[in-house]
């Protein structure tokens, strides 16, 4: 029982973490809540589906092409819609949501409400401590670790990372120090969209593709990011695993209430926030503190 909770929780947490990191990054740097974040993940999944099913491209190159395309769409979205209103937080939230709706409707028009599936990169499963885990889920977990290390290395070891962190801490001062803030924001946005697309690429084969697939994970990752502390990548990572373990524990300990796993996770979030209003690892900014 315990080993099953452990392993399934790690798998579920990994999926959430992969989605939450990008969302957290763009919030930390630009203070933007990008509600279109998971719609990139949807676009990437549908991209892979189209490329493999209609053009006959094998899964891995298809994922690469789709990743590039989605990142490009993310960039275009930022340039066209978000950039000009990025000072207004509520407007950013609304416009990204409206854009996500546009993507949803376009997908709905092209693919209709059918449930589809993208082919996996690897099929089969491994047995760990007597628990069966599909290779695709293991791959997801590996990619999460890779992405996390990559993001950490980028942020702390490169000049670009230092610039990104500078903008995150104080964009005005960063600007005065000669950092091109809007370029940094653009780069961050494409990294975030790219991460969402990566998530789409590796998770898609384990999912059902449908035009509303972006809403459920969106709510969950927002809750995760809030739980971990807005803007803290480390916090989101840990928050994702908290959610993963809570959900899996509910399934195992109260099978009749398995459908409540999402609600339970949200209750945990609300309770934690009651005691730590800035989340587990959140940094309360001077002007945001009460």
């Amino acid at each position: 029982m315990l080993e099953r909770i452990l392993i399934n929780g790690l798998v579920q947490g990994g999926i959430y973490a992969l989605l939450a990191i990008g969302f957290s990054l763009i919030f930390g740097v630009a203070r933007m809540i990008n509600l279109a974040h998971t719609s990139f993940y949807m676009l990437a999944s549908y991209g892979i589906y189209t490329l493999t099913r209609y053009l006959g491209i094998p899964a891995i190159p298809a994922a690469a092409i789709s990743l590039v395309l989605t990142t490009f769409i993310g960039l275009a979205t930022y340039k066209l819609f978000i950039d000009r209103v990025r000072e207004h937080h509520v407007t950013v939230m609304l416009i990204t949501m409206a854009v996500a709706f546009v993507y949803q409707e376009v997908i709905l028009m092209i693919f209709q409400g059918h449930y589809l599936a993208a082919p996996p990169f690897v099929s089969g499963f491994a047995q760990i401590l007597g628990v069966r885990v599909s290779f695709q889920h293991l791959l997801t977990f590996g990619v999460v670790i890779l992405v996390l290390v990559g993001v950490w290395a980028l942020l702390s070891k490169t000049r670009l990372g230092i610039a990104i962190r500078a903008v995150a801490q104080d964009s005005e001062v960063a600007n005065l120090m000669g950092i091109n803030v809007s370029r940094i924001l653009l780069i961050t946005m494409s990294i975030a969209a790219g991460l969402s697309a990566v998530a789409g690429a590796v998770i898609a084969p384990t999912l059902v593709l449908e035009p509303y697939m972006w809403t459920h994970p969106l709510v969950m990752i927002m809750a995760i990011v809030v739980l971990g502390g807005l803007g803290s990548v480390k916090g989101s990572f840990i928050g994702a695993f908290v959610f993963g373990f809570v959900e899996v524990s509910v399934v195992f300990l109260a099978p009749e209430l398995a459908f409540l796993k999402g609600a339970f996770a949200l209750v945990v979030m609300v309770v934690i926030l009651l005691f730590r209003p800035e989340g587990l690892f959140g940094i309360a900014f001077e002007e945001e503190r009460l």
Partner: protein
Amino acid sequence: MLRRLLKDFQGDIIAVPGRLLALIFFIMLLLVPLVTNEPYILRTLIFANIFAIFAVSWDLLSGYTGQVNFGHALFFGVAAYTSALLNLKMGMPPWATIPIGALAAVVAGVVVCLPALRLRGPYLSLVTLAFPLILLGIIFTFTGFTGGEFGVSGLSRVSNSRVTDFYISFGVMLVSVMIMWKLTDAKSALVRTGIIFHAIREDEITARASGINTIRYKLLAFAVGGFFAGIAGAFHAHFMRIAGPSNLDLFLSFQAIIWTVFGGITSIYGPVVGVYIMYPLMEFLRVVPEIRMLIFAGIVVIILLFMPEGIAVFIRDKMEQTCPRCKLSNVWWRKTCRACGANLR
């Protein structure tokens, strides 16, 4: 007395084009049943009335006090379920269940407010998002009582005729919007709430430093916002004769925000205009069902990009100008202020 009223009417309404337009619009709306009895048109207008209350209540809570609520459907749904269950299980008539439903929404408002008092900005928005989802979980747990995905159906009607329904919903809408307008009017001599709400949004710390008990006013905003959203929800349940999980949907919460921002946030009349344009437009677009939602989303994007202050405010600013000296509104063609004669250009 009468003459005085008439004079006020002339000065405060006729002279300000925005208000005159609103007056004409409402009178025309009042006369609709005389022109057409088409039940479909009346239904559209009834829903516009109901959703106008809903959108305005969001504006009061989020636009004025800055507590951006992403789960406004919670109040709508709580009231809808409460009044539905009271009506069905205890046989209470709609005129009793609607106010009780709204009071239940007030309770929900206070409950949500408790974490909200400690949270700010995006944290608050995202936490409020969670509440309707948690409640949905509860509804699906006690299906024997709540009907689960079927909802609670077979409620009694508000009245037996569509025209009466229309006039009731219209009256309720007018009264609710008037009350909310007065509560948020920063210049009001009667209540201080308007100016305090503004202060909380602009700078809560300063407001507190000025001796305002901001907690009390935030609570008040949640309670009032919840109450009117609840009125809308309970009315909707009785008109549809069903309260179901879709009343708590994320989509409904977002619609309130979209209508408000489309019309003009922090203005009370903005959301009313937003709903009255957007809702019938969506009904009209039924002739092209394939791209209906796409057009909806497209319009929202364009409005947000080019008229971030909303369509109603945009038009009002084109029609009215404020006197730089006495702050009175004037028609756009006037060169001097109608009260103090100051030069307007």
